[in-house]
């Protein structure tokens, strides 16, 4: 790879990444690079290893081989919370929020302060926290629901809330796993708007199936197939790649 030598210029450089589960290689010698302020969409058929790639980057799954560098920092050796502290945020496929807490409390817990035991005991809900929570709630269309129990939100609102919980941490790299899955058409439009707003000064990796949505937001697209990069480039280029057509239509 020629890009290896210039690894430092990328926000994220994934090189030779492999993970095997009892011999099955879910991700196989994968390499890709994400630029500053780029929105990268990863697509691919089911079982291509898309979610596993996010799991590997955020430390949920440990790599068998290969390296993941975030701003020159090796992530494969760090623990999950250290990766978050480094500036990587990740949204899960199913909305992962705290159902028993209110929207306000959900956002407050994600506020990046008082993250150790003592800090959490002494944490004060001061003006800074309250202002920030309101600011984010406004952004994710939930400013009127701050005191609602999160379990009572609609599916789409839960997805927004989880995005909000990431935003309050202001990550430099944001990873979203199917952010519009299960959303109505109206909600999708709002989400696309939201993503366009929040991706201004950070890099984003999105996994998505909805091609229209992909075309709306993506700078570049990476197509995964059987744990490897099948094709990479602009949406047009990828859509016209015969290999991609083969994979999507051929089975």
């Amino acid at each position: 790879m020629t890009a290896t030598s210039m690894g430092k210029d990328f926000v994220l450089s994934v090189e030779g990444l492999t993970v095997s589960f009892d011999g099955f290689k879910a991700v196989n010698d994968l390499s890709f690079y994400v630029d500053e302020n780029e929105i990268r969409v990863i697509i691919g058929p089911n079982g291509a290893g898309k979610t596993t790639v996010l799991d590997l980057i955020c430390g949920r799954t440990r790599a068998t081989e290969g390296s993941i560098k975030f701003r020159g920092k090796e992530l494969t050796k760090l623990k999950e919370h250290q990766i978050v502290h480094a500036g990587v945020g990740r949204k899960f496929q199913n909305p992962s929020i705290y159902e028993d807490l209110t929207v306000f409390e959900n956002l407050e817990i994600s506020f990046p302060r008082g993250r150790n035991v003592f800090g959490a005991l002494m944490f004060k809900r001061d003006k800074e926290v309250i202002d920030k929570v309101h600011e984010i709630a406004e952004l994710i269309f939930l400013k009127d629901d701050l005191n609602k129990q999160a379990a009572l939100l609609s599916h789409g609102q839960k997805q927004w809330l989880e995005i909000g919980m990431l935003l309050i941490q202001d990550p430099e790299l944001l990873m979203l796993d199917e952010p519009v899955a299960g959303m109505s058409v109206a909600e999708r439009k709002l989400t696309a708007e939201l993503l366009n707003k929040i991706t201004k000064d950070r890099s984003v990796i999105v996994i998505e199936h909805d091609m229209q949505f992909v075309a709306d937001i993506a700078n570049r697209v990476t197509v995964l197939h059987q744990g490897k990069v099948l094709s990479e480039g602009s949406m047009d280029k990828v859509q016209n790649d015969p290999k991609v057509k083969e994979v999507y239509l051929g089975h």
Partner: protein
Amino acid sequence: MSYGLRSFLPKNDMINILLLAVLIMVIFPLSMDIFRLNLVGKYLSYAFVALGLVLCWGYGGILSLGQGVFFGLGGYCMAMFLKLEASSPENTAIQSTPGIPDFMDWNQLTALPWFWEPFHSLSFTMIAIIAVPVIFAFIVSVAMFKRRVGGVYFAIITQAIAAILTILIIGQQGYTGGVNGITDLRTLKGWDIRTDEAKYILYFVCCALLIGSILVAQFVRKSKLGRLLVAMRDKEDRVRFSGYDVSNFKIFIFCLAAAFSALGGAMFTLQVGFMSPSFVGIVPSIEMVIFCAVGGRLSLLGAVYGTLLVNWAKTVFSESFPELWLFGLGALFIGVVLAFPNGLAGVYSTYVEPMLAKWLKSLKSARPPMPSSTADSRS
């Protein structure tokens, strides 16, 4: 500062804690003889364990079936000090080795084992009562939680630890007093703990410590750490990927629960006058879980009331119908789990509170209806 106080102790909670304090510190002492009051004091020492379980199990989702271990360790530390004082060379002059506890003499020990030595000092004992169980809890919980062992596995392992410690205490008679435990405790720095007056004083000390522990637990519950525990119980991964080292919080809450239990154990020894392995093992440990479940696993005060109620029932039943008690206890386990997973506190907030509210409203029927407040089963 007033904002801080109000957020940690809202008016409702403060009234409820005051009511409990009045009940145990005024009403009980006025209405009971010292024998009954001493019994209540014994029950209240279990309430410390139930309190710890509310935080650790109700909030943190960590079910420990080995709380008896910490109760026992705290109790044994206290008992060792008292036993040494009761075994002064003058008191034990008839033994073949005077100056060591009687059970050691019976087991042909001729010198005090090394780990008994520091318990000659009261200040060491006071520290050890908390420190020994907490350090033990710390070691166990670090080993388990750092490796992400939780739920059912944690329950089984803590249960095994309770079994191990019981067998060990019973097996090592010469060092521990064996199955009888450490008995015949008399004085604390010369103060006779067996008199009625001492029992009164110890009862009030126990109450004061319990209220203090409730306030500490309330502080933790109302802090961000309390909300984090609830969040972790629901979506542990989300908390982890929000930048928290989840295991540290679990370790903390487990150690805090151990500290409460140990305090209860020490108060038990002081009030009841002995400590034995029958309060350490699997059976008492699970019984303490049911105290907490009956009161409501999410309610600090519920745990205290649950403990009092179950133990009162146990005393009444096993006095008059000893055969029925186990049936009753068994049915209680099944009934609470199946029908009332939130225990008395849950029943109170779903049935009693709305009725009270209705009744209050009908009293003020002339006024326009107030917006109904949401029921909070967690107070």
